């Protein structure tokens, strides 16, 4: 938490005096921890350009840094607000919770306790919200992941919810839009979470055979078992700029091969360059891009 409201730092946007100096690299290392969360107070430091910004100005700008276009992580509810037409989102299966299949205990705590804590912290009951929504008047089934709930990891409930969303999209012949934001499979549920990769991919195979349109939006971060299953199986893959997208976490790779990772490794731009994305779209354009894609794919 770098700052408080009382002391506006000298390096405020517009006031900064390091214009001539070399700007710090946008690549901020390979921490798997959420990049600096939005601190409390009126000011926020952008992890992209290190500028201090008015929080309200950032929020007005869809949580994107007006200086360097850094896309801040946002919670599922905010994402839905930005993406769907006003008040159009109707949540389904919002009460589905896990029954802790392994009875997982670690250190001096338990998985159940972690869930309780994260429910309190994030205000949602699981790492994915699904429901019916409209984007610019076009009906869709929307699945959005919540990064603040156990790092948006996929356990049984996430798998089950996504499959329910797929079933619904199939039954109602609506496009499916999934906004991915996840640290991967949830290890607290062991092979049950691993199995969700197979389960969601199999359900998507059915959806594909039925001719449904599936659009994936990859946001920061999309890694591990989620990237290796439903997040990369879309008919169309869209990513937000600068998002971390990959299979193994950058830290794991760095530890394994013991050489420094190249700058920009595993970013959206890297993925686009290597042919794994259709497009990179700024947050403010997502709505219109998805709407346009849906129109193009109308049969």
């Amino acid at each position, binding site marked *: 938490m770098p700052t408080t409201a009382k002391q506006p730092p000298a390096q405020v946007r517009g006031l900064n005096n390091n214009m001539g100096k070399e700007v710090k690299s946008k690549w901020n290392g390979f921490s798997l921890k959420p990049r600096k969360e939005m601190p409390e107070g009126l000011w926020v430091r952008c992890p992209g350009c290190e500028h201090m910004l008015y929080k309200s100005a950032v929020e007005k700008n869809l949580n994107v840094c007006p200086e360097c276009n850094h896309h801040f992580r946002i919670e599922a509810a905010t994402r839905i607000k930005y993406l769907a037409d006003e008040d159009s989102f109707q949540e389904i299966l919002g009460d589905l919770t896990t029954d802790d299949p392994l009875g997982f205990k*670690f250190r001096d705590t338990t998985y159940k306790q972690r869930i309780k804590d994260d429910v309190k912290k994030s205000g949602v009951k699981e790492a994915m919200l699904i429901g019916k929504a409209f984007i610019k008047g076009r009906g869709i089934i929307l699945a959005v992941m919540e990064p603040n709930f156990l790092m948006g990891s996929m356990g049984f409930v996430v798998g089950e919810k996504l499959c329910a969303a797929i079933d619904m999209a199939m039954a109602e012949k609506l496009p499916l839009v999934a906004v991915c934001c996840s640290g991967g*499979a949830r*290890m607290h549920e062991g092979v049950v979470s*691993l199995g969700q990769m197979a389960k969601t*991919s*199999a359900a998507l*195979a059915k959806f594909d055979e039925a001719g449904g349109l599936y659009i994936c939006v990859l946001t920061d971060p999309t890694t591990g078992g989620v990237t*290796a299953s439903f997040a990369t199986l879309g008919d169309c893959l869209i990513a937000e700029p600068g998002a971390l997208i990959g299979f193994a976490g950058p830290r794991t790779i760095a530890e394994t091969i013991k050489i420094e990772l190249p700058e920009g490794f595993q970013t959206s731009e890297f993925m686009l360059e290597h042919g794994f994305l259709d497009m990179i779209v700024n947050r403010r354009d997502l709505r219109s891009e998805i709407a346009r894609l849906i129109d193009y794919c109308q049969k």
Partner: protein
Amino acid sequence: MAERDTIIDKMPNNKNSLSNGGHLEFEGKVADLDSQMNELRRLSSIKGIDYSAEIRRLQRQQVTELKRIYSNLTAWQTVQVARHPNRPLLSDYLDLMVKDFRELHGDRCFGDDRAIITGLGHIGRERVLIVGQDKGKSTKQKIACNFGCPNPEGYRKALAKMKFAEKFGIPIVTLIDTPGAYPGIGAEERGQAQAIAVNLNQMPRLRVPIICIVIGEGGSGGALGIGVGDRLAILEFAYYSVISPEGCAAILWRDGSQAPKAAEALKLTSKDLYKLGLVDAVISEPLGGAHRNLHDTVYNVEKYIVKTLRDLKRTKLDNLLDNRYKKLRLIGVSPAEKLRRKTLAGKERVKEALEAIPTKRKRVPAKV
């Protein structure tokens, strides 16, 4: 290939055999008995005294000891057995179980990943496509097959050969033994995640029977990438996990040396997985683990494949795929919920049947 050189000292299986004659650390008494017997054999050959009765007694003692140890293995001990340097690897199965093996190379796109071997052969009287992960025995082989850590081209090769098998109605057998998909720069550049995802997406649709068997390490997505099928079996002392115990300990315990605790918590042993309904069968291993008797292990696996293939081939293809899909959709669903869905499905069938009746009745008034 700087990536590959640095990995050597990282992998757990970098020794060809353990320093103490292949005994694991929890087999102390077994090792003692072994050295006692060796000593007696040496003495009898030097001095010409017959110690055979004594040796037999020690052997019986050793059998009891092995039974005691291996019936109560902890999760971490199981992981060590699964990684034992003498444990039978894919090449042993190919040698002992598959007749007339014809390896098929290459993903037709980038390269030929030696961590995943694919080829046609016969198991019993059945022609099959084998897709297996190989860790290699000698240091040279190990480096060649990247210690069993596949790259994306391995998964793409597997899928290409599986589609080939599908075209000609050849059943597929996959043998899983990997610490995990390789976490390297090249692997990410070539889309490790996408390659696995596509396999998960395509394998449920393949119109041939698929049997998957975890023969050693079932490391996360790297294992799952060739592990979707009609049956998933696991050898008694193999493990299958969402993350390596070391990795899990490093994240949740913030200390990699807590791996034994993590292994316990992850419920990664065959017994636990079977109890949780996550594997369909557990294939038993000979006394003291697969590494003590290659032939019996391979025989048990062969028996399972032959029997299961016979069952699967009896099922109509549409039903086979239907069952496969239903099985995948039920992963993680609690037993109570499974039952509820079954009865629900039953009710739906009744409803459908009832709905079918009025349409017949509608025709009746038309006559009148």
